[in-house]
């Protein structure tokens, strides 16, 4: 943004009063204040409804756990946006697809006993190990078939979004055709008891596993982006694709890795979300809104921002269910997103535009 300061009589540079107010209103600090006010509002609303501090705390913990799963999806959305400059509306359905391919593998493997205290057996881990690279390659294949011709044609950015919308519905129809419209579980009929973590906060061991694995994967992505050559190449391409290309970076390799990471994390996120809640053909479509809310909150294209955004959205989503109908959870994510778009569209970590 160009400098809006004006020269005063005393020779100093100042903002006009209105512009100063605007600068404050769109600052990062103010965005945090808005978020803090939102949480404060939640707590007051919960008090008014007579929700105990204890159950608020456990909703907070549950939100953090949910944030881990959301982060896996959100990082993929934001990486694809950073490198390929496209909003991928098929990302949620990629998560669904990964979850169901995982179900297929679990069905094919001989059933083992649950790995106490978790509710899943070794098959789930094997399925995860197969599905993550498989879906990563699969999304790269789809990119080559659909998005590459569009890139070569230099199509408008919005055509990519439309192709991804068609892809989203196509993937979901495959899930419907092969698995039907009903919800299901990885282990139908297996009890998933919750244990007390601390101060009356009860969680299922599975959920701790989910958060742990999500953190491991996120740290892995961090190391890959920061410490490896391909990570550097990806960041360079995200910053300036043309400059990256002329400096000898192999764009196709960068695109391959973007989909491997983005698609793979989406598949992992889908399987973990399905393990926590249930498998449903629409689960990914419903997650799309919280995912994009996280990504926009944390600045489109910023992987660490997406991570922070995912945890904030997860917590806000869960805590809000203390006092409003929980089916509006997606609506809360949407509300946060609209707030961000009004106050600071570039997100928490974006520079001034």
């Amino acid at each position, binding site marked *: 943004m160009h400098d809006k300061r004006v020269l005063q009589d005393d020779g100093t540079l100042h903002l006009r009063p209105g512009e100063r107010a605007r600068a404050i209103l769109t600052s990062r600090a103010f965005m945090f204040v808005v978020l803090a006010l939102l949480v404060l509002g939640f707590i007051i609303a919960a008090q008014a409804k007579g929700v105990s501090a204890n159950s608020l705390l456990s909703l907070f913990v549950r939100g953090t756990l949910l944030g881990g799963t959301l982060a896996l999806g959100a990082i993929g959305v934001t990486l694809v946006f950073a490198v390929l400059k496209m909003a991928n509306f098929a990302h949620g359905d990629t998560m669904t697809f990964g979850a169901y391919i995982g179900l297929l593998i679990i069905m094919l493997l001989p059933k083992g006993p649950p790995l106490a205290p978790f509710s899943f057996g070794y098959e789930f881990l094997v399925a995860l190990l197969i599905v993550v690279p498989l879906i990563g390659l699969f999304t790269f294949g789809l990119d080559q078939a659909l998005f590459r011709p569009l890139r070569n044609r230099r199509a408008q950015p919005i055509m990519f979004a439309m*192709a991804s919308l068609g892809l989203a519905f196509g993937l979901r129809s495959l899930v419907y055709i092969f698995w039907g419209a009903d919800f299901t579980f990885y282990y139908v009929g297996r009890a998933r008891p919750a244990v007390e973590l601390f101060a009356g906060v009860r969680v299922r061991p599975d959920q701790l596993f989910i958060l742990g694995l999500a953190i491991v994967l996120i740290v892995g992505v961090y190391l890959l982006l920061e410490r490896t050559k391909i990570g550097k190449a990806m960041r360079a391409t995200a910053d300036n694709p043309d400059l990256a290309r002329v400096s000898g970076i192999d764009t196709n390799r960068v695109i391959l890795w973007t989909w491997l990471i983005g698609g793979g994390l989406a598949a992992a996120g889908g399987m973990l979300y399905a393990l926590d809640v249930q498998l449903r053909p629409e689960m990914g479509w419903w997650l799309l809104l919280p995912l994009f809310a996280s990504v926009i909150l944390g600045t489109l294209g910023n992987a660490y921002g997406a991570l922070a955004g995912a945890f904030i959205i997860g917590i806000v989503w869960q805590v809000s269910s203390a006092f409003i109908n929980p089916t509006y959870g997606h609506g809360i994510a949407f509300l946060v997103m*609209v707030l961000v778009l009004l106050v600071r569209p570039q997100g928490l970590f974006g520079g001034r535009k």
Partner: protein
Amino acid sequence: MTPLVIAKSALLAVPLWLVTSTLLPIKASWLKHLLSIVIGFGVAVAATLVVPTGGMSYITTFILMAGIYAVLSLGLNVQWGYTGLFNIGIAAFFAIGAFTSALVTTNMPTGANASFTKQLMGLGMPFWVGLVAAGIVAGILAWLIGKPTLRLRDDYLAIATIGIAEMVRLVFQNERWLANGPQPLRGIPQPLQCLAGNGCDWLPGFVNDFFAPLTPRDYPYIYVAIVALVLFLLYRVLERAIRSPWGRALRAVREEEASAAMNGKDVAAFRMQSFVVGAVIMGIGGGLYAHYVVSIDYGHFDPLYGTFLIWVMLMLGGSGNNRGAILGAFVVWGIWSGTSFAVDALRPTLAAISPDLPSRGPYIRLLFISILLLFIVLYRPKGLLPEEKVVSLDRDLA
């Protein structure tokens, strides 16, 4: 020719007349309309006589539904085709229009019904007031969602419209006081229903006599004429608007935002106007839908029927071309209905592959439609009827 055939043909002649008069390349207006009415009525009589009654009602309801989708597709064409706004929450405006029109035209439930049906209001107003209200409320919703998003990159609008569509659906699913919650809102009045029953009090006797042979199950013949008239009116207004300076400015905003701004066009205002106008038309489409199906609930407005099909319609027909938008609606609705027959015919084969498959037939159609959209985006981005270069208002249209 029985009086029934004549009554049905007269109603079916309305859409045929409007289509023919649009396509006939004759300058003299009176001659064009005379010819179109003759052709329309002739074709309608021939079809009613030749095609068996069941087939004819199917064709009528087909034209009717495709016509309603054509209204939605026209609305999307204003937003996407002319201005390049990526709205993937059509379902929001579709639903809000349908529910608004329903709440404005129904009567408040009384007696025992009051405990079964809860609704915010029931004004008992006529059909056209319902349609106008549907358009207005949908327009207000568009303004609210456009305000924070239209000044940003296109992707933000897209994701915000997904959000608003989900929100509208959730609200109509959960809020019983608003429009009977998860239960359907029933008893939405059908305009001119009396014509297919005991006759309308307010119409002159000879009109009632003319339509007297119609029975309530012939109602789609009446509604198809109403839908055709609304669609035609919207089409003419849009054609006129798009040839006006306003239409040129919209396309300028779509093509080169910077140069439009440099020429003194208020880009943000034009984007907002286009978004609201498109939403108003979608709201009217929702109203038309509600009065046809009589009973609506949140499930009617899912992302597939409420948004995705309409996108495929516009993309196939040709974005930026109003005739393309209408043609696309008919072709895609034809494919959608036709594949339903195909899947039914394939039932034994599907059952042989897996016992679950026949019941999942609709999803095979969804897969097909998704592939169709991808095919269009990749190989035919201009659609069947590409956008025409409209430089200025034709002399004869003015």
